[in-house]
């Protein structure tokens, strides 16, 4: 959707008494009026209406958003802030007014992709890349870079329940393009989506370890004219069918479960990860802000790249509740969450659900 198509949402936010302020991880971390959801949307609206000039400085506020969508969960008008602000980013890019931190983003994206692709083939044995498989495992960039163990652990858990027909996708890309969407680089995203869709449509089923990749392929790709005929699932959704078959040799006494924004709020997957976790953990602790109202880890929306201090504060806030207890572990199902929370977790272990299951087999 173009920037102007968000007129209604932008207008509603401009004239709202900021009632979702408390939900915004970035606003809470920065404590600046200009970066609460209402102010970011109002700035976008004033730019749209020509009441404020679009400059790299005014456009910079659009990038102070995790894209977590929690504000929309609280909004009585069902305003969806993330796509509107990402459209505002695209407008800034189109007018050459994106902030300096976004320059050469495309080059950096592809350089990272190539490096991670190399890393993937270095990490995983070639026998797991089978071209004619019907079910493909599409590994994500953050998993390869920050949690490569999850790749092995996922394969190990699949094997343990008798699923030996999943092969790693042997393609040119390890990211469905969320960073392009968040950067406002829509033509780059469109190109990438078409490339990936054409390659993945040969499979019957795609499983991803990144919730954002699943959401992109399932919901955004069709809007970009790149539908994927295969069923796209997060690994947790796929594994849920096999949960009763998971036989663990020991269990962990207790752990918190952190809902990744895209797996929970965006894809609506709340119970499957808890069911799987229940195979390996005797007592699952819930955050006060959980499920639909799960609080972001700070890793989304390119905030971790552009505003690392803010991202760290968000992770600290998320972990505050854990730190008040003696619970030694937080489990999640997203490599980005795992990375971001781990950086601030001190003695608390942050572990991917697949790694936890593999460890307890």
């Amino acid at each position, binding site marked *: 959707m173009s920037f102007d198509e968000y007129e209604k949402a932008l207008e509603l936010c401009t004239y709202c008494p*900021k009632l979702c302020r408390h939900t915004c991880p970035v606003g809470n971390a920065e404590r600046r009026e200009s970066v609460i959801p209402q102010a970011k949307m109002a700035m976008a609206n004033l730019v749209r209406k020509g009441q404020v000039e679009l400059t790299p400085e005014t456009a910079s506020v659009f990038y102070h958003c995790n894209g977590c969508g929690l504000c929309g969960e609280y909004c009585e008008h069902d305003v969806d802030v993330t796509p509107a602000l990402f459209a505002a980013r695209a407008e800034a890019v189109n007018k050459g007014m994106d902030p300096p931190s976004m320059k050469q983003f495309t080059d950096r994206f592809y350089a990272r992709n190539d490096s991670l692709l190399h890393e993937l083939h270095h990490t995983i044995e070639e026998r797991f890349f089978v071209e004619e498989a019907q079910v493909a495992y599409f590994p994500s960039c953050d998993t390869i870079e920050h949690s490569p163990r999850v790749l092995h652990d996922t394969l190990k858990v699949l094997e343990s329940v008798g699923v030996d027909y999943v092969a790693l996708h042997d393609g040119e890309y390890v990211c469905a393009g969320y960073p392009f969407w968040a950067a406002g680089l829509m033509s780059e995203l469109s190109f990438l989506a078409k490339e990936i869709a054409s390659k993945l449509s040969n499979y019957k089923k795609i499983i991803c370890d990144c919730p954002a990749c699943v959401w992109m392929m399932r919901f955004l790709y069709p809007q970009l004219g790149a539908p994927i005929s295969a069923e796209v699932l997060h690994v947790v959704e796929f594994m849920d069918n096999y949960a009763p078959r998971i036989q663990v040799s020991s269990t962990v006494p207790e752990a918190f479960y952190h809902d990744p924004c895209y797996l929970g709020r965006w894809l609506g997957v709340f119970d499957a990860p808890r069911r799987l976790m229940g195979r390996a953990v005797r007592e699952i602790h819930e955050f006060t802000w959980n499920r639909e109202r799960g609080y972001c880890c700070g890793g989304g929306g390119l905030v971790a790249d552009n505003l690392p201090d803010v991202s760290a504060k968000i992770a600290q806030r998320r972990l505050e509740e854990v730190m008040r207890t003696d619970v030694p572990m937080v489990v999640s199902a997203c490599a980005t969450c795992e990375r971001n929370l781990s950086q601030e977790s001190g003695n608390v272990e942050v572990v991917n659900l697949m790694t936890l299951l593999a460890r307890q087999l």
Partner: protein
Amino acid sequence: MSVPQSEITGQLAEAVGPENLSSSPVDTIAHALDFWPRALMKSRSGPWPRGPKWVVWPGAAAEVAHVLRIASAYALPVIPYGGGSSMVGGASPRGDRPWIVINCKRMCNILDMDEVSMVVHVQAGIVGVELEERLNARGFSLGHVPTSMTTATLGGWLSTQSAGMLSSRYGRVGDLCLGLTAVLPDGQVVHTRVAPRRATGPELAHLLIGAEGTLGVITAAHLRLHRLPLHRRFDSFCFEQVAPAMGALRQSLAAGVRPLVARIQRDPRLRRSDREQDAPEPTPADLSRRVLLLAYEGPVELVEVEQEIVRDLATALGGEGLGQAPARRWWGQRFAAGFRMTPLLVQDHLFADYVELGATWQALSGLYDNLEEAFEKRGWRTRITVEHARLEGASLGCAFWGEADSAEAALEAYDEAWRLAARVCHAGGGGLGHVYGGGQHRAALLDDNAKQRLAVLTEVKRKLDPAGIMNPGILGTE
């Protein structure tokens, strides 16, 4: 006096640190307005109003003091800023001089908690919901739940003497405040002592509570806490008219009942969204019906006794028991009201606002009828709710909205609606500005009694703030 802006910028940077000072349009635009419907309506078709020249985020009272001394030296207006959700025009001073906004949100920590005495010492920049969540985690509650819970700060509440949805039981925020730290316009930091009771002259804290930042900046407060309730129960009664509903509520309070929630509103079963698709349109009798919504909390024995007393009184006055559901439903949606005005404000030709007035029980029923009739005669829509009930009286919250031919006509109609509300209120013995404070807006609508009180306050302000820097034009003070 001329304004050497770069010199001032340098001094402010020294006061709060350069990273806590901004003159960027990103920040000044965000601080240009609050949620005063009139200002928002003006901005729909006109330019976005100019904002402050400087925004500072001090981290402590000493830094606030430093900023105020700079402002006094250059006679620069200063606006203390919390959530910026005021509905009465509290965010923009009148006049042409560049001004400073002191955004208090860096001062957001709980400093101490005395669980024995049930007192918390907390900085004023904390957002309400954050404070409440932190207290809940330790088994306590402040008991202050206004619609602005998720956006306003403690300092904003104190500065406007906020009244929450639970005010019938816990009072206004000023009733919960046991002591304050504030910075006076000359930079003096004052602390009022926390003690259960004192009889050594007027309480300084109560000069600053409700002063809307015209006498200084509140930076921290000691607040009374309550233990999280053991038990909560809801009840609802339907009456043919508003008067017996008011009677039941008044008599219940007089009998010693302290409900958590007590409000009278239109029958929620008439809401378009709740009616069957083919249900007949409501009759005049349906529209006259009013529902008394109640909630109680505390030990179960106490809750049962309170509920029984109210049930007997309501039934004797013709109230039909509706059970827990309507009140429970309202509770579940208690913050939704804050969203309702926005769709009306985005359309150029519409106008809307919320008149809130207080009156004693003797006057309340007449005021209710007169206000409703006056607005309806002009074709403006209203929804009046009786809320914030106390022993001596209650508040009428009157949401109004209407349509005009143009943006200009909508503004004129808006002003006329307020003049009308003020006339009805003053003639009926009520007081305007019962909940949201005065700001720029209500100050222009005060009655003679309020003006007299204001004259005294203005004298006090002249002594405390000789340079006239603190929120000039707010509350009618210069």
